[in-house]
């Protein structure tokens, strides 16, 4: 089926070449980082995780979001989603690949990354993260590819795919839970030390993932002859809406706990993010923007006339995606590290090389996504005889 990806229109090839160029630039900056060290980023002794890990955290959510398509179709026989399970699975593949790239890019000694396998450490959450991420990647590639291949040949998928699919559903939950467990088990970081972190992660995942999937379906409809169908998109939109509401509710719960208990340890991190602390507050406008975007996105998705208008729906998905990205990809990491365990403040902002490497990794993910989606749409178009 790979041959579907090497025949395309001029637009397709321009897009692919542009992505390759961005990847090359990002890679060049990464070589510089390998030579100089992670000092070219904005990370510091106090904020020792930054943009790269934030993107990894966010993208694990996007990858897990694909399960919101798998559960209705495979567990509850919601036939309408039959067309888009493959799209969701391939989105998960691209997202997980980006997650792994971001981790590799963040390592101080990436040539030693096999040490995690040579010296397995079951009491470390990063060990399990490696296992669940790799497992999820293989599951989704194998499932997506075989289901698509079977569809192309108009036969049902082979029997052994079914158990893999059933495994992939709790596995999707597990990847984001394990990622949350990286943070919420650390005794010294009171911003993350909350039981609701894993539910919050899952809520934002199930909003951001399907929101992006909706946007991708619209792009696919615009550039190819494959249309997933209006009812499917509307159902997805409703899923996004409820997940986003749940995420917002969880956030408000955290705010209540901090504000009502008045315990400084809990309050300080939120104060830093939303009001600034001791004169430091570069994230304040971003956090409020995130709230506005998420609330606006939810409202647009709640109002039927807005949700059923495709352009408004696209806007709502973009608003939600960006709003959740700011919350998870910017606020959560900095908020956890600031103030530091000695109540000192060192702010964090990504540097130019760091941003270019990040964009390079995103481009790599988009390239994988493009190639995989080209294959899917190629097969679908072949089936409908267009």
């Amino acid at each position, binding site marked *: 089926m790979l041959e579907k990806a090497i025949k395309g229109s001029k637009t397709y090839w321009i897009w692919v070449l542009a992505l390759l160029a961005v990847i090359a630039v990002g890679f060049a900056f990464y070589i510089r980082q390998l030579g100089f060290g992670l000092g070219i980023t904005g990370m510091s002794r106090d904020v020792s*995780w930054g943009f790269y890990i934030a993107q990894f955290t966010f993208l694990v959510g996007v990858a897990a979001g694909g399960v919101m398509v798998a559960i209705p179709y495979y567990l509850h026989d919601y036939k309408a989603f039959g067309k888009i399970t493959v799209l969701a699975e391939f989105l998960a593949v691209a997202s997980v690949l980006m997650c792994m790239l971001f*981790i590799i890019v963040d390592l*101080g000694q990436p040539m*030693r990354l096999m040490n995690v396998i040579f010296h397995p*450490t079951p009491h*470390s959450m*990063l060990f399990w993260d490696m296992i669940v991420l790799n497992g999820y990647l293989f599951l989704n590639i194998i499932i997506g590819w075989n289901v698509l291949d079977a569809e192309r040949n108009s036969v049902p998928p082979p029997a052994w795919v079914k158990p893999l699919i059933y495994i992939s559903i709790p596995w999707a939950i597990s990847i984001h839970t394990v990622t949350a467990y990286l943070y919420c088990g650390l005794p*010294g970081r009171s911003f993350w030390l909350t039981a609701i972190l894993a539910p919050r992660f899952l809520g934002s995942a199930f909003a951001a993932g399907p929101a992006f999937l909706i946007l991708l379906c619209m792009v696919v409809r615009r550039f190819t002859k494959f249309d997933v169908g209006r009812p499917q998109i509307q159902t997805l939109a409703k899923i996004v809406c409820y997940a986003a509401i749940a995420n917002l509710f969880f956030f408000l719960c955290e705010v209540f706990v901090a504000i009502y208990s008045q315990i400084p340890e809990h309050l300080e991190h939120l104060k830093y993010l939303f009001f600034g602390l001791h004169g430091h507050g570069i994230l304040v406008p971003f956090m409020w923007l995130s709230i506005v975007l998420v609330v606006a996105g939810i409202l647009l998705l709640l109002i039927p006339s807005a949700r059923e208008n495709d352009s408004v729906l696209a806007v709502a998905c973009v608003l939600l995606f960006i709003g959740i990205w700011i919350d998870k990809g910017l606020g959560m990491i900095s908020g956890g590290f600031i103030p*530091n365990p*000695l109540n000192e403040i060192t702010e964090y902002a990504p540097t130019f090389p760091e941003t270019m490497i990040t964009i390079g990794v995103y481009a790599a993910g988009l390239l994988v996504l493009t190639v995989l989606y080209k294959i899917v749409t190629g097969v679908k178009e072949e089936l409908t005889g267009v």
Partner: protein
Amino acid sequence: MEKSRRDFLKIAGITILGAGAGSLISGVSISSANESAHKAGSEFFKNPKALTAKRWGMVVDTRKLTDEICEKMQNACHRSHNVPDFIKKFGKKEKNHEIKWIWETGFENAFPGREIEFPRENLEDLPVVVMCNHCENPPCVRACPTQATFKREDGIVMMDYHRCIGCRFCMAACPFGSRSFNFRDPRVAIFDQNPDFPTRTKGVVEKCNFCAERLAVGKLPLCVEASEGALVFGDLDDPKSDIRKILADNYTIRRKSELGTNPSVFYII
């Protein structure tokens, strides 16, 4: 003959995997055979002069500390262990990449959450020296995915710089901010390098090691020697040790003891 190319690729793939696995297994068995052949004639043991303990610990008597003593302690430690000084080399803009194993801070920074509303006189100016607490229940060791940081039998939380992949999970896990990361090559900012101790390289995390290399030859940690009596070092598990006597005679506090990490560094305020 339709499937022949696919079959060919499948067989080729399996052959390569098989050959790879075969060479891996034979390689591993050869090296382990070599190791056991060599081990037959050699052993490892401690220097007889080494100081040993079941649980090393330290008491910091802040009543005896002054700014000068703290500076002396930091210089002794950092100089001997080749800890770089980026601020001295490149200026304040390198504060982000600072590496420190032991340093002086204020009371409210060493013990956040323990602020006293009407403090004893001069409490705000009290010099408090902080370093890795070598916790008995260390969250950093729990977090490390490669056991590059691990707890030794004598209680010291050690770093294996050869194994560290630089993921900085331990830095996130440490509730005390004791760990530093080499964001860049440290050798450019080491003044007066000590040739008897290695440096580190970029991309690994480092921290105080309770001078394990000195304990191994019967010497006390450098900060203890430079402290003019303010720091007492000994075996917390030995009821007859000096450190236990001091702990029995004085009220001591530990940093963030409510977190259950069981630090081995005690403070007399």
